[in-house]
């Protein structure tokens, strides 16, 4: 059990997807000031990561490895992810139209989010078991969401602050990313 918690904490905090592994940066820089959007995005991505991890684990261990065609993993993973996002998009559209409109273009963009393909690749290279993959994807996703939420809070102040013209927008957001990253180094001792 402690092993699972370590995997979870490692991917959520110590090796945080955004500030440490640089996975999932596009939504990070595009996140709005609204906490609810950041939260919805975070949940959506975590959900995709979780389901994708489970499906790709099965494909990896029961098909790819069994037939010795591990090199097909990239194609298989991305197709699984693309289909998954498509299905989730349809599901959200039918059940919660406000959420669908709130997420807008960012929902289909989850397909190209490095974090999703990233976690499937990490699961494969670390040779995690099924349950370990679950904890890993939850850790990665929730860590991603944490940063998004923190950023949405900072964004509010950032937009009205007196930033030098050259730094407005992307550069200052990057600096915030740097500071968050330095802060998260403090978690290093956990694992």
């Amino acid at each position: 059990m402690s092993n699972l918690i370590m995997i979870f904490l490692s991917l959520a905090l110590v090796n945080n997807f955004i500030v440490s592994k640089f996975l999932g940066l596009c939504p990070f820089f595009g996140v709005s000031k609204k906490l609810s959007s950041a939260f919805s995005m975070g949940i959506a991505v975590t959900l995709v990561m979780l389901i994708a991890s489970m499906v790709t684990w099965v494909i990896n261990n029961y098909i790819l490895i069994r037939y010795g065609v591990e090199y097909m993993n990239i194609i298989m993973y991305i197709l699984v992810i693309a289909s998954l996002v498509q299905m989730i998009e349809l599901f959200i559209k039918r059940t919660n139209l406000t959420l669908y409109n709130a997420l807008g273009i960012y929902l289909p963009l989850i397909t190209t989010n490095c974090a999703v393909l990233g976690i499937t690749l990490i699961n494969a290279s670390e040779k995690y078991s099924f349950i370990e993959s679950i904890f890993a994807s939850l850790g990665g996703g929730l860590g991603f969401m944490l940063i998004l939420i923190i950023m949405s809070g900072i964004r509010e102040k950032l937009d009205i602050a007196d930033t030098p013209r050259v730094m407005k927008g992307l550069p200052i957001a990057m600096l915030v990313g740097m500071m968050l990253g330095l802060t998260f180094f403090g978690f290093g001792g956990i694992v």
Partner: protein
Amino acid sequence: MKDKSLKGTFPVVFLTLVALIAVGLLVGIDSITAEKIEQQEDQKIQEMLAEMFADMDSYQADDPVEDIYTIYDDGDVIGYSFETVGKGYGGDIKLLIGLENDKTTLKGVTVISQGETPGLGSRITENAFLDMFAGIDKSDVALSKDGGQIDAITGATISSSAVVDAVMGAISEKVQLLGGSE
């Protein structure tokens, strides 16, 4: 949504065709590269073993125990070697450990791969650190603060202990399998 009942199947056929071509191409590329990849792995191990055991003439994997390399010089066994993985600060630390023929004295430790902090934990790859393992008795494999012979790297205690713990664990496990004394 235009009604594509007549051309309905063409998109699917097209996609399937593309997918089949893609798979075919990949199978082809894989058959060319797979052998080379395996060769690379073997070569890497061989180079590392040769560096650790200067007198090495040949080696045999899985002999007498699985995952242990037996090192030969002209037919005589001169030592053993095995890999192990430690949990470092930045992920796995893969190590290659060399044991003398007496199954008690260490020949040396080589770092196969690591992802520690550059400039701090990554210094476990430096000779200054690894040389401390060469020639010591297996009972001395511990950090100085724990009574052993290995000085931790300043500012990289986690990486240093990860290596020490991994070496300690691997040795006690493999020596038992080799039939040596505790």
